[in-house]
């Protein structure tokens, strides 16, 4: 992209020639990404305190330390388990919801639609408190004492409630572009309802499923508020653990752990984008 070059052919990025717009763009980008870049750089800083902005030399010892921190790794493992489980269920539920809303007309459909997307707009703190109350009323707060992965049940359920509406929305948007004649053509050629779904509708939905899954996964992985309210005292997830570490003291170890998380997210996003591109050309 010739964003910062003189370019004589008119194109969609022409506005970048205007210096004011260019400044706004640069300032915006720096404001958004500088903290992340700084966080990554200072994960390699040979200093005792993470808040120290004085460069004391390059080291990777905080990565070793972070990976050696058993509690942190346990929290990380918990987070991944929760994310995977809640993503799988969210995408399944989201896909089914999306199909129902896209395909069928039924009484009170707008009400149902509104209810489904409610968790998107409800403040997280309200979701957190209500779920915590629900779990304690049901006597499920004790699940934290059971064995892995059942100790995560509460959190997984909580994560599904707020991430499946996102998955449903993304998948439904994808369904909107489906040509119903495809379905009829398949049926006309002898396919049963199930074959139509498997051979025609599902391949069309795939980019939506991948995008929905990615969204659900990242939402789950970095959720703090709802997790904080619904986890028992003995189950800790990655964001919750980081928070408690920050309260104790900010060390480059936290930077290192966060960097690992950022890289993981980037890789996942890259894979998802890549996958969608391949899929959409076919």
């Amino acid at each position, binding site marked *: 992209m010739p964003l910062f070059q003189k370019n004589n052919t008119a194109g969609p990025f022409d506005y970048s020639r205007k210096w004011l717009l260019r400044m706004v763009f640069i300032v915006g980008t720096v404001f958004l990404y500088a903290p992340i870049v700084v966080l990554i750089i200072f994960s390699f800083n040979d200093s005792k305190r993470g808040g120290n902005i004085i460069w004391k030399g390059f080291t990777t010892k905080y990565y070793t330390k972070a990976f050696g921190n058993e509690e942190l790794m346990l929290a990380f493992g918990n987070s991944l388990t929760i994310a995977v489980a809640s993503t799988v269920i969210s995408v399944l539920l989201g896909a089914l919801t999306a199909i129902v809303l896209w395909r069928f007309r039924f009484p009170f459909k707008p009400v149902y639609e509104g209810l489904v997307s409610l968790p998107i707009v409800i403040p997280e703190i309200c979701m957190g408190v209500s779920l915590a109350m629900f779990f304690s009323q049901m006597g499920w707060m004790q699940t934290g004492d059971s064995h892995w992965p059942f100790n995560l049940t509460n959190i997984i359920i909580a994560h599904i409630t707020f991430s499946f509406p996102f998955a449903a929305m993304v998948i439904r948007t994808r369904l909107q572009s489906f*040509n119903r*004649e*495809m379905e*009829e*053509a*398949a*049926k*006309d*050629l*002898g*396919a*049963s309802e199930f*074959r139509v779904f498997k*051979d*025609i509708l599902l*391949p*069309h939905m795939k980019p939506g499923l991948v995008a929905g899954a990615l969204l659900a996964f990242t939402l789950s992985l970095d959720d703090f508020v709802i997790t904080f309210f619904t986890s028992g005292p003995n189950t800790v997830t990655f964001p919750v653990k980081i928070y408690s570490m920050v309260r104790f003291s900010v060390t480059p170890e936290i930077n290192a752990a966060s960097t690992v998380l950022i890289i993981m997210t980037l890789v996942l996003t890259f894979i998802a984008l890549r996958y969608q591109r391949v*899929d959409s*050309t*076919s």
Partner: protein
Amino acid sequence: MSDPIVSIRNISKQFDSVLALDDVSIDIRPGEIFALLGPSGCGKSTLLRVISGFETPTSGELLLDGEDMTQLPPNKRPINMVFQSYAVFPHMNVETNVAYGLKMDKVPSDEIKTRVATALAQVHLEDFAKRMPDQLSGGQRQRVALARALVKKPRVLLLDEPLSALDAKLRDAMRLELVKLQETVGITFIIVTHDQAEAMAMADRIAVLESGKLRQVATPEELYSHPIDGFVADFIGNINSFAVSSWHADNGQISLTAEHLNTVVLAIDETPAFLLSEAPASDAVLAVRPEHVTVSLTQPDENHVSLRGTLGDVAYQGQHCIAEIRLDNGTSISAIIDNALAKSLPSALEQAPIWAFWQANNMLLLPRKVD
């Protein structure tokens, strides 16, 4: 006459408050190209969807080779369809698309291979077997859709507006090719179209539908020369119609007066029933096709039906021109005239009087509309 392959019997279809099909009965013969023709909203697509099984009629029945299949779902009918959007599966290559229907029928894979190859050869897509649909042109995608339906050897092939998405040149070529293809495979084709020229050029017989009602079923020639009413006459080609004001029949002749016209005398065997009904005379029309209308600067003799007017727009068509003759009261009629005559006529600006005339026996006496 052979038994009909498809029998549409008293089929009606009600959508909420709209009666899309109103007691339609048609017999379609094996091996013919049959066109369902009508303006948009006439019910032709609904009828096609009833035949394919995507709509269940509100009443009436549908027979295939004498067997009732009104309630049979589309995937159980030995009928295949080429959709208007072609509906080629975007995530499968050409070969897989064509093989899909056979795979659903659990045809052995080596047989699928040979049949797919044959079908692709029939539509001249042998070299495109491994292509993905987005690497094909619109015309090629349509061929894929055709091959995909034909490979199943259906009893009847349905085509929904098969040429509407193609550009003019390709449309003419595809028209011929479809007819040739039909002759090769011998499968009955039912084509839905709103384009009368398309229907006339391709079909052995045409059903004209309007507002859910069947108006007429006939061969293209018959539809053109003996339309059942003013609507069909106007829909199949152009026609100049004049409302009848009074009539008098005797002795194998009928003399009529109509708006703008001098008395027209037609030879008839018997007085048409629609004139004898209670309806006013103006429910009948006298009509003449533009190609029967001649234009001249001098008044024609008494043996012709003639009209005086001024020349309006002249549209050049290549091999001939379509001239508009404006009558004194503001209405106009059209005539097909040859290019040399068009050149010799005074320009429209001069407002010079000209005469349009034709022979009385070229006129059709029709009811305005049959219900």
